[in-house]
C-alpha cells in the first residue's frame, strides 16, 4: 500500500516537474539516431528513384542493389525501431512515474546492441558483400558479418521489449487490480508482438550463420522464407500499432476531445496482437510447395486482420465528429471546419489516418489469391508499403515528434516550427501521392520491384512504363525536401527552440464511460491464444517443408 501511494505521489511529482531527466536522455538519444537514419535513408531512396527514372547513373562502388539493401535496412529496421522505443519509453516514464534504474540499464544496453548490430550490417553492404535486400532470401549468401549484425540488432530489440515488460510488471505489482494506463497498455501490446515476431527470424538467422561461414553446406530455402515473413509482415504491423497508439491516445487530446471507448481500444490492441504473426504468410501466395487449402486458410487469417482496423476507422472519425460538434461544428460534414488544421501535431496524425483508408484497402486486395497474382513483386507492392509505412506510419511519427521532442528536451514548439511542420506535412503528402500513386499504377502494368533502370532491350512494354518512373522521381525529389525539413525541425526542437514546458498529451476517457472489464489485463490468456493461432498457421506448412521437401540449396553470391 505504501509503495502504491509512493507511486502515485511520484507520478504527481513527475507531472509537476515535467520529464524525468535521465529518462529523457534515453528518448532523446533514440529519437536523434532515428532521425539521422531517416536523413541517410532518405538520400538513398532519392538515389534509387532517380536511377529508376533513368536520370542518374550510380557509380560501380555503390550500386543500385547496395543502396536498395541499405535503404530497406535503414528505414524498416533502424528508423522505425529507434523511433518506436524513444516514443514508448518516454510514454512509459511519463505514465508510470519514471523508469526503474534497472530498466534504464537494459534500454542503454539495448541501444549499444542495436548500434553494434547496425554497424556490422552496414559494413558488408558497403563492401558489396551483402547485396541481399532487407529480406535476405537464401540461397543468396551474404557475408557472415551481415547475419551476425542482425542478431545483435534483434537482441537489442528484445532487450527493449523486456525493459518494457519489467516496467509494466512493476507498476502492476504496486497497483493490484488496476488497469494498466492506456499508453502503457499499447506499449505492452507492441512489446509482446515484437518479442514473439522476432523468434522465427532469429531461428532463421541462426541457421544462416553457420551456412554462410561454410560449416553447413545447404539451407532449406522455403523454411527460411516462411520464418522471415512471420517476422517481416508483423514488423510493419508493429509500426502500424505504434501509429495507432497515437491516433487513439494522443489525437483526441490535441483536438480537445475525449478518448474513444477504453474497452474497445484495448480489444483492438488484443486483436492485433493475436492475429498479426500469421499475416506474414500472404507474402507467399504464389510460392510453390504450399497446397491450395493451406493458402486459402491463410488468406482468411490475413483478411481477419482488417477487422480491428475497421473498428479503428470508426472510432477515430467518431471522436473527431463528436469533438468538433461540441465545439459548435454543424452539418453532415461541416463539422470538419472545427478541426485544428493549422496544428502540425494534429494535421500529420490526421493525414496518417486518412492515408490508411486506401493503404488498408490495397492491403486487403493484395492479400487475396487472385489479386496478389496480378501485383506480386511488381512496383504495386512498393507503392503499397510507401503508402502504409511512408505515410501512415512515417507521418504519425513526424506528428508525434512535434510535441515529443520538445517534451523530452524541456523546450516548446514555436509557431515558426509549427508552420514549417505544416508545410513539411503537405510536401510529404504530395510527394508520396506522386511516388506511391505512380508505383501502384505502373505495378498494375507489370513493372517489377527491386530492379535497377532497364528497358529490357527496348521492349515496347517496358518503355511504356517510363512516364510513371518520371512521376516517381518527382515524388522522390519532393520527399527528400520533406526529409530535410523534418530533420531540421527535430534538431531545432531538440537543441535550439526556446526552453519551456511541453505536455505529454494523453487524452482522458469520457466522464460517463462504462468501466473496462478486467479480462483485458489477462495477457497470459491472449498470448496463449496468439500461440495457438500461430501454430494453426505454421505447423502444417513448416513440417511439410522439412519432412516432405527437397534437398537443401548451397549458397550463391550473384552480385
Amino acid at each position: 500500500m505504501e509503495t502504491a501511494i509512493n507511486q502515485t505521489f511520484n507520478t504527481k511529482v513527475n507531472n509537476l516537474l515535467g520529464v524525468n531527466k535521465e529518462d529523457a536522455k534515453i528518448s532523446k538519444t533514440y529519437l536523434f539516431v532515428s532521425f539521422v537514419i531517416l536523413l541517410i535513408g532518405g538520400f538513398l531512396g532519392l538515389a534509387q528513384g532517380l536511377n529508376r527514372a533513368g536520370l542518374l547513373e550510380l557509380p560501380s562502388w555503390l550500386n543500385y542493389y547496395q543502396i536498395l539493401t541499405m535503404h530497406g535496412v535503414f528505414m524498416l529496421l533502424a528508423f522505425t525501431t529507434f523511433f518506436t522505443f524513444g516514443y514508448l519509453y518516454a510514454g512509459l516514464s511519463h505514465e508510470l512515474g519514471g523508469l526503474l534504474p534497472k530498466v534504464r540499464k537494459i534500454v542503454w544496453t539495448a541501444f549499444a546492441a542495436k548500434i553494434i548490430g547496425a554497424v556490422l550490417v552496414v559494413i558488408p553492404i558497403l563492401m558489396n558483400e551483402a547485396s541481399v535486400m532487407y529480406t535476405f532470401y537464401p540461397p543468396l549468401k551474404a557475408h557472415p558479418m551481415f547475419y551476425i549484425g542482425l542478431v545483435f540488432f534483434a537482441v537489442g530489440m528484445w532487450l527493449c521489449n523486456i525493459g518494457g515488460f519489467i516496467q509494466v510488471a512493476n507498476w502492476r505489482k504496486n497497483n493490484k487490480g488496476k488497469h494498466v494506463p492506456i499508453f502503457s497498455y499499447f506499449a505492452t501490446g507492441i512489446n509482446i508482438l515484437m518479442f514473439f515476431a522476432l523468434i522465427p527470424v532469429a531461428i532463421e538467422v541462426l541457421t544462416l550463420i553457420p551456412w554462410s561461414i561454410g560449416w553447413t553446406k545447404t539451407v532449406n530455402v522455403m523454411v527460411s522464407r516462411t520464418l522471415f515473413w512471420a517476422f517481416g509482415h508483423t514488423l510493419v504491423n508493429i509500426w502500424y500499432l505504434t501509429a495507432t497508439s497515437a491516433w487513439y491516445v494522443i489525437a483526441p487530446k490535441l483536438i480537445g476531445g475525449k478518448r474513444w471507448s477504453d474497452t474497445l481500444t484495448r480489444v483492438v490492441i488484443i486483436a492485433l496482437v493475436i492475429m498479426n504473426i500469421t499475416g506474414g504468410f500472404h507474402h507467399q501466395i504464389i510460392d510453390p510447395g504450399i497446397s491450395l487449402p493451406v493458402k486459402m486458410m491463410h488468406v482468411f487469417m490475413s483478411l481477419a486482420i482488417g477487422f480491428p482496423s475497421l473498428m479503428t476507422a470508426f472510432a477515430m472519425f467518431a471522436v473527431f465528429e463528436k469533438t468538433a460538434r461540441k465545439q459548435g461544428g454543424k452539418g453532415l460534414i461541416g463539422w470538419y471546419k472545427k478541426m485544428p488544421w493549422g496544428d502540425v501535431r494534429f494535421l500529420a496524425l490526421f493525414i496518417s489516418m486518412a492515408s490508411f483508408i486506401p493503404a488498408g484497402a490495397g492491403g486487403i486486395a493484395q492479400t487475396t489469391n487472385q489479386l496478389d497474382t496480378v501485383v506480386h513483386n511488381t512496383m504495386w507492392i512498393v507503392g503499397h508499403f510507401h503508402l502504409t509505412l511512408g505515410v501512415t506510419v512515417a507521418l504519425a511519427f513526424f506528428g508525434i515528434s512535434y510535441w515529443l521532442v520538445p517534451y523530452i528536451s524541456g523546450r516548446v514548439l514555436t509557431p515558426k516550427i509549427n508552420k514549417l511542420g505544416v508545410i513539411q506535412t503537405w510536401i510529404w503528402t504530395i510527394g508520396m501521392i506522386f511516388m506511391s500513386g505512380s508505383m501502384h499504377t505502373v505495378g498494375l502494368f507489370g513493372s517489377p520491384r527491386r530492379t535497377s533502370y532497364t528497358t529490357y532491350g527496348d521492349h515496347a512494354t517496358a518503355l511504356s512504363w517510363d512516364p510513371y518512373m518520371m512521376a516517381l522521381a518527382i515524388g522522390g525529389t519532393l520527399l527528400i525536401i520533406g526529409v530535410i525539413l523534418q530533420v531540421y525541425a527535430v534538431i531545432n526542437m531538440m537543441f535550439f527552440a526556446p526552453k519551456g514546458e511541453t505536455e505529454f498529451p494523453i487524452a482522458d476517457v469520457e466522464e460517463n464511460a462504462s468501466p473496462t472489464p478486467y479480462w483485458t489485463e489477462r495477457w497470459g490468456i491472449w498470448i496463449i491464444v496468439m500461440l495457438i493461432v500461430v501454430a494453426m498457421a505454421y505447423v502444417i506448412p513448416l513440417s511439410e517443408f522439412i519432412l516432405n521437401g527437397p534437398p537443401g540449396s548451397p549458397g550463391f553470391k550473384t552480385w
Partner: protein
Amino acid sequence: MKMHKDEKIWLALSFSIMMIFMLITGYQAVAEGMEPPSNTDYIDPQKVDQTAPFDKPGIKQIGDKEYEVVMTMQVFSFNPGNIEVPAGSTVHFILTSKDVVHGFEIAETNANAMVMPGYIQKVTQKFDKPGSYLVLCNEYCGAGHQMMSTTITVK
C-alpha cells in the same frame, strides 16, 4: 461492454464485407480454377540438369493449340528463351530454378509465380492477342537481375 448503435451497424457492415470478400475469393479459386500457382512437386536443386523433365528444356506441342514449355531459370536467363506460339494457344509452363529464387512474370498478363530452387512450379497462360510478350524475373536475383528477361512471340 457498451457500444454505440452506429458502431454496431458499422461493425456488422465491415464483417459482412469481409465475409463476402472471403466467399468470392474462395469460390473463384475452387470453382473457377483461379487458384494461385501452388505446385508442390520438388527436385534436387543441385541436379536440375540431370533430372527429367529439366534435362531437356524446351517447347513441345501437346495438343491442338496447346503447348508445354519446360523451362529453367538461372542467373540471369530463361532456358528456353524467345519462344513462339500461334495466337489462341494455351501454354503450360513447368519451371524450376538452378540457383537462387527467381520470379516468373509475363507482363500484361496475370501469369506470375515464384520459382524457388528445389521446387517445380507450374503456370498456365492462354495467349489470345498476337504480339511480343515481355517475360521477366521479378524477384531480385543478383547484379544482372535487371537484364533477366526474354520474350514470347504470339503470331
